[in-house]
């Protein structure tokens, strides 16, 4: 799985420090890059979609890459509009869904459980 997580060389993306203040920024996302992303995202994209998306993604990334112009090291990131941390509640038993309610939308079920296709391959 480790190889999946590794990205092809960031050949087209310069490090943020290099690109700061530069407006032009050519992204070049190949068909194979998109295929790898689709694999990570678990979407079996068609060949047409792979080709189309590689072009679109390059254009969109060129447009959004300008966030790097102002994202200097002294600016702290904001992940969320509310300054909340670790919201806890009392650990108490409360009414919840019955097993049949929880399974009501399942594509397949068996013995009060979600029935799923085989997860591990033969060699695993």
């Amino acid at each position: 799985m480790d190889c999946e997580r590794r990205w092809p060389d960031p050949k087209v993306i310069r490090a943020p420090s290099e690109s700061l203040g530069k407006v032009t920024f050519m992204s070049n996302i190949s068909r194979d890059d998109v295929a790898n992303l689709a694999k990570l995202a678990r979407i079996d994209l068609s060949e047409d979609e792979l080709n189309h998306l590689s072009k679109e993604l390059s254009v969109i990334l060129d447009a959004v890459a300008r966030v790097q112009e102002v994202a200097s090291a002294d600016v702290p990131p904001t992940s969320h509009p509310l300054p909340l941390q670790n919201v806890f509640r009392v650990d108490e038993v409360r009414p919840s869904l019955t097993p049949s309610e929880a399974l009501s939308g399942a594509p397949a079920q068996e013995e009060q459980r979600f029935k799923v296709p085989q997860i591990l391959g033969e060699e695993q």
Partner: protein
Amino acid sequence: MIKNSAVQMAHALSSNEISSVELTQAHLDQISKVDTDVHAFLHVDSEGALAQARDIDARRKAGEKLAPLAGVPLALKDVLVQKGIPTTCGSKMLEGWRPPYDSTVVSRLKDNGIIILGKTNMDEFAMGSSTENSAYGPTHNPWDLTRIPGGSGGGSSAALAAFEAPLAIGTDTGGSIRQPAAVTGTVGVKPTYGGVSRYGLVAFSSSLDQAGPCARTVLDAAYLHEAIGGYDRMDSTSINASIPPVVEAAKNGNVKGMKIGVIKELQGDGYQPGVLKLFNQSLELLASLGAEIVEVSCKYFDYALAAYYLIAPSECSSNLARFDAMRYGIRVGEGSAEDVMNATRQQGFGREVKRRIILGTYALSSGYYDAYYGSAQKVRTLISRDFEAAFAKADVLVSPTAPTTAFKIGEKANDPIAMYLNDIATIPTNLAGIGGMSVPSGLAEEDGLPAGFQIMAPAMKDDRMYQVGSALEAALLSKWGKPILENAPSLGAR
């Protein structure tokens, strides 16, 4: 009766001039009459709505004290779950799914006796600005059926403008309540983030998503806001404080001495001249009512759109991982769990959703995370600082809601960047988590179509938006002599 405001309908109900069953039936009849053309609804729950109306009528007859909007019908955006009622989010992925529980918004609507007519159309998983991304076909703008009703909540805004419902619920991640309101001549409010519970709202971008009221008048929106808002223990990001006094503010509507800040960066190039003209006329009206108009600069707003189109796709790529064909939703194909997942997500998701998931997966990838998602989070900080500085000079900030009036269906379908520009004025508030409202500003001279005036307030000061919104609404009403929707063509005549 269906053209009245929700408050007028509530009065007619409480004074026994009409029953909730009659009022609900009148709206169901209007839906039958016009929705073939408008396509605002994905599901109409006639039986459930009438049963709920009968219950309210019986309780009223028995002398029970009911909530202000009890018995008034409403249209619900199909992104909020309602027990036993199909919820698709405009996606094939959830076709046929009936949720086993009520979202908090729905529970509160039911507690308030508000009648839920059905579920409204939307861009798939709320990703879009035109409702063209719905897997079930587009919604048509009642002002001109060849045009878009805005998005993602185009079904809710169109239902209001076509008098299919006097109230609706929307959700706003980057403008999906306000931009549809602007292009349909209706009112839409994105409350402060955390002001309305997200429990049971199918997540798109969790740090931006916010449900809120849609209506034809500011006061109606305020009553609906009070009905659905407030703390909810089921949402860990719900703000534990009382709802700002929005109804009182909407009734007050006095702007004398208020400082209204015009954001320099949210006008000019890219904005339709007629939209800007209406915006400036509205400003003059507010000044004539005693408000002080000041100009403010938010220089990092130029980066808001870019930050949004990294943050929202990043969060969506993570949130939509839940659609795995295992626990609910459709299941396609055979083989291993991974094969089934790949095939199901390929078939279940539409073009825009796939585009954003892939973009978000890229932005979160190791090696790219800092350059894209990390930088976007820093822009978010800069935008919040811009707002803070601006609110030091003004009580509320204003801008046009959307840069243009409604465009033609299909016009921007193949140009994602052009489509994303629709939200240029609404996105900054989502990034900062503050409230925003759109009220009609009039009809643009170029095309005779409605435009919106956006009012933004600091976090948890939502009442200020209602105060300014109702002042502007009243001034424009006395100028026009009739509500803006009286100018819309009548539907269903064919």
